[in-house]
């Protein structure tokens, strides 16, 4: 026997053994924002997905509506009908009032569908055309109880209209009674409107009467109207209770959000009673209406219904989104297994996971999600994709993915900036070729060709790397490369990229301040609107210079326990932790900023998340002996000569040239040392490192996709390197005869509440790293395992160098 309805795959009875027939309502731009956005974006695959999702949640027929201002229903509807017909096992309900659109769709649909809808609003003209179509193409029809005077409100009016339409459709146009679905409409009982308080009763009565007089026709209802105006959590309960009552009254089919229908068993007797009071308008008085009681009741019991929304009844599609956004990996594989029964693996990635990661990026951009949590989300993403990979066809994806080559430039061992970019891009669905550190331009060119990449991304830590980037631009140009190049790293600036890098290469060259700027650039590339960085309109003027400062050179030269260099290895790693700049670690390196949190929320974040994390990592670094603090330092006789410092070491003269501020107070490091032919002063230097072990751990964490811990361990290592410098500077001050007063702490170090200063080469008071050459000749840090690359970077990366001035006026400044 032929069913009432049929899709390409199966027959569907309008009158189910266990009613109601569920008709999904989400594929409608007027009812679902998601569907609307997809439609407006011409994402027809996404639209189909909305249909498939409903099917997976139990919808037996999918209502499809595409009428929306600014869209062309005539082309959209047939196109989607074809798509839906090919993929959905569920039946189709064509939701349109335009007979031409309906006809075009009916022609394409391979089964028997339902037309939604006819009515007598215009006196019958449309009804005439649609009924003829229904007969010609063998479709069922939904009829609404509306006529020239509007929507029927009372049961009697509704039934009368059914009678008129039934007569026309069956007697005049020859449709079979079983092809008709009457929708007696319902209105909200949730608004407090006194003319509507019996709207539920009228509708239920109409259903009963229709079924009594015309047993062959089907009844249909858009159930959720009943609760319009109330809280979503409450609506879900009322709708479910009302649906149950309507089915009891004889309802055959319901247009619903299939995901939101709750089994009656899940609703407590008390909840149900409050709803029934409202539906049947029981025990009404002026001061005490059923609606008031319901609202009061649910404001107390809201918790329970929301709880329910949190657990159990959340669809898997929503749950996976939440897991990603929250960075929660509990039960991840189980959830993905459920989803795999509904979608192909690739669809899960593209339709569910990638949009969720996009949301994560947006939250980060708005300051609502901190970096460590973004990395946790990325970990969940990575795990999900790894799990799904074995269900994907090989290379199914790679064809259309945007490909990006990432490298740290020649002479630079800085890994983490580039790796964070790798993490963010990979976990937003891009194909990344991360070819490592110290990569010469020739290799970058060869690899870009080999992998046929769409975009190149280059990274570097120090200014020298920025210069390497600048110098290699013409090389990429000459090699004939045409893909855009993204540049990033701490020492780069927007204007350097705009002025020094952009001119060397024809295709876009783009400055990226962080990984998300990189993501944005890739998106712009895909949309065809990526453009080279241009100089920022106004260069920010720095702090106003103070008055010219006179440096008093009558200071005493301290005496020191030895002259020349010394190596120190017996440093207790634990000691470093008390010199740590915790604020810079937590808020800066780790990214646990207060941002939009209140003071209390931030305190909770610190005590519940950050402090335990710190304790855990500290323990691990100590237990596994991952820190090998080592120092090479020395005191040398010296004198200044204009802007230079001449240093005696091993009876050789080493010269350090320092720049001078152009504006007042015209500071220059050389001024802190006595000058003149016969002057005698003292200068200190050091190179410190925490060794190589930690870098091995970070590399391992990155390899194992433990992104969060990767950033945390790296950040801690970086700050411990600084702590070692702080510690050793303090030792040197003590040796020179000015030990710190008791109780000196973090804040005093930050603000240099001690005598003299140390200046790291490359930092703002002495930006030129060339000084590393004489420094390394004097101190020979190779003995503690520290060497220089061709661009004067120190390896291991967690090493730092400084010149130590003891002059009381010496403090930080910038050229």
């Amino acid at each position, binding site marked *: 026997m032929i069913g009432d309805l049929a899709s390409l795959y199966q027959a569907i009875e309008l009158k189910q053994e266990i009613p109601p027939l569920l008709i999904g309502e989400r594929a409608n731009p007027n009812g679902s924002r998601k569907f609307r956005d997809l439609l407006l974006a011409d994402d027809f695959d996404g639209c189909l997905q909305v249909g498939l999702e409903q099917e997976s949640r139990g919808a037996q027929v999918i209502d499809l509506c595409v009428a929306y201002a600014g869209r062309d229903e005539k082309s959209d509807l047939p196109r989607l009908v074809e798509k839906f017909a090919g993929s959905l096992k569920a039946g189709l309900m064509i939701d349109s009032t335009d007979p031409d659109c309906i006809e075009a769709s009916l022609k394409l649909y391979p089964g028997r569908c339902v037309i939604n809808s006819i009515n007598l609003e215009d006196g019958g003209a449309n009804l005439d055309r649609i009924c003829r179509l229904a007969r010609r193409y063998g479709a069922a029809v939904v009829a609404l109880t509306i006529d020239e005077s509007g929507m029927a409100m009372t049961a009697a009016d509704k039934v009368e209209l059914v009678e008129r339409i039934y007569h026309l459709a069956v007697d005049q146009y020859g449709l079979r009674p079983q092809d008709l679905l009457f929708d007696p409409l319902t209105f909200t009982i949730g608004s407090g409107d006194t003319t509507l308080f019996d709207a539920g009763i009228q509708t239920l009565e109409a259903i009963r009467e229709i079924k009594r007089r015309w047993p062959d026709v089907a009844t249909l209802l858009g159930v959720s109207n009943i609760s319009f105006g109330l809280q979503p959590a409450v609506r879900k309960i009322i709708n479910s209770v009302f649906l149950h009552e309507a089915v009891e009254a004889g309802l055959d089919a319901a247009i619903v959000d299939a995901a939101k229908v709750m089994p009656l068993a899940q609703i407590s007797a008390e909840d149900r009673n409050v709803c029934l009071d409202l539906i049947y308008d029981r025990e009404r008085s002026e001061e005490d209406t059923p609606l008031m009681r319901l609202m009061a009741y649910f404001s107390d019991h809201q918790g329970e219904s929301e709880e329910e929304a949190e657990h159990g009844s959340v669809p898997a599609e929503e749950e996976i989104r939440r897991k990603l956004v929250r960075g929660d990996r509990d039960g991840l594989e189980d959830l993905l297994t459920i989803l795999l029964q509904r979608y192909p693996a690739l669809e899960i990635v593209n339709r569910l996971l990638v949009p969720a990661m996009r949301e994560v990026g947006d939250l980060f951009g708005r300051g609502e999600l901190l970096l460590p949590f973004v990395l946790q989300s990325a970990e969940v993403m990575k795990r999900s994709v790894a799990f799904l990979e074995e269900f994907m066809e090989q290379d199914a994806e790679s064809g259309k993915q945007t490909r990006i080559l990432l490298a740290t430039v020649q002479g630079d061992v800085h890994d983490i900036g580039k790796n964070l970019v790798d993490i963010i891009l990979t976990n937003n669905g891009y194909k990344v070729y991360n070819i490592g550190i110290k990569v010469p331009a020739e290799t970058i060119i060869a690899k870009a060709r080999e992998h046929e990449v769409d975009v190149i991304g280059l990274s570097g830590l120090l200014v020298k790397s920025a210069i390497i980037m600048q110098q290699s631009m013409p090389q990429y140009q000459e090699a004939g490369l045409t893909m855009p190049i993204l540049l990033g790293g701490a020492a780069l600036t927007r204007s350097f990229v705009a002025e020094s890098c952009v001119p060397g290469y024809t295709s876009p060259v783009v400055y990226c301040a962080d990984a998300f700027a990189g993501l944005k650039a890739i998106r712009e590339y895909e949309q065809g609107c990526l453009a080279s960085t241009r100089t920022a309109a106004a260069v*920010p003027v720095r*702090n106003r210079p103070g008055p010219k400062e006179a440096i008093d050179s009558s200071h005493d030269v301290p005496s020191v326990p030895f002259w020349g260099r010394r190596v120190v290895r017996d440093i207790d790693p634990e000691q470093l932790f008390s010199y740590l700049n*915790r604020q810079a670690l937590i*808020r*800066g390196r780790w990214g646990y900023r207060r941002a939009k949190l209140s003071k209390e929320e931030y305190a909770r974040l610190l005590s519940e998340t950050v402090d335990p994390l710190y304790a855990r990592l500290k323990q691990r670094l100590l237990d596994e002996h991952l820190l090998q603090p080592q120092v090479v330092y020395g005191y040398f006789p010296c004198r200044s000569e204009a802007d230079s410092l001449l240093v005696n070491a091993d009876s050789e003269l080493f010269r350090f040239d320092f720049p001078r501020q152009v504006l007042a107070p015209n500071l220059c490091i050389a001024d802190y040392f006595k000058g003149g032919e016969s002057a005698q002063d003292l200068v200190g230097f050091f190179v410190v490192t925490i060794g190589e072990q930690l870098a091995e751990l970070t590399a391992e964490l990155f390899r194992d996709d433990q992104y969060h811990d990767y950033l945390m361990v790296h950040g801690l290592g970086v700050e411990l390197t600084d702590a070692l410098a702080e510690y050793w500077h303090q030792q040197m001050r003590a040796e020179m005869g000015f030990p710190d007063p008791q109780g000196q702490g*973090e804040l005093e170090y930050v603000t240099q509440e001690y005598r003299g200063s140390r200046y790291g080469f490359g930092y703002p008071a002495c930006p030129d790293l060339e000084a590393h050459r004489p420094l390394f000749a004097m101190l020979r840090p190779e003995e503690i395992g520290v060497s220089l690359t061709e661009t004067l970077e120190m390896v291991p990366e967690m090493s730092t160098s400084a010149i130590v001035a003891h002059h009381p006026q010496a403090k930080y400044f910038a050229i």
Partner: protein
Amino acid sequence: MRYICTCCGYIYDPEKGDPLNEIAAGTPFEDLPDAWVCPLCYAEQDSFDPLD
């Protein structure tokens, strides 16, 4: 309210201002000139976090 530099830990205290850079005592963080940067590490103002 005091603000802390997330890069280096410097604390901007409105009660003290930043005399070196001619910021008068009593100037709230929000009213600092746009060009004002961390006096220690030169981080820009968006690198600062509220402290209390």
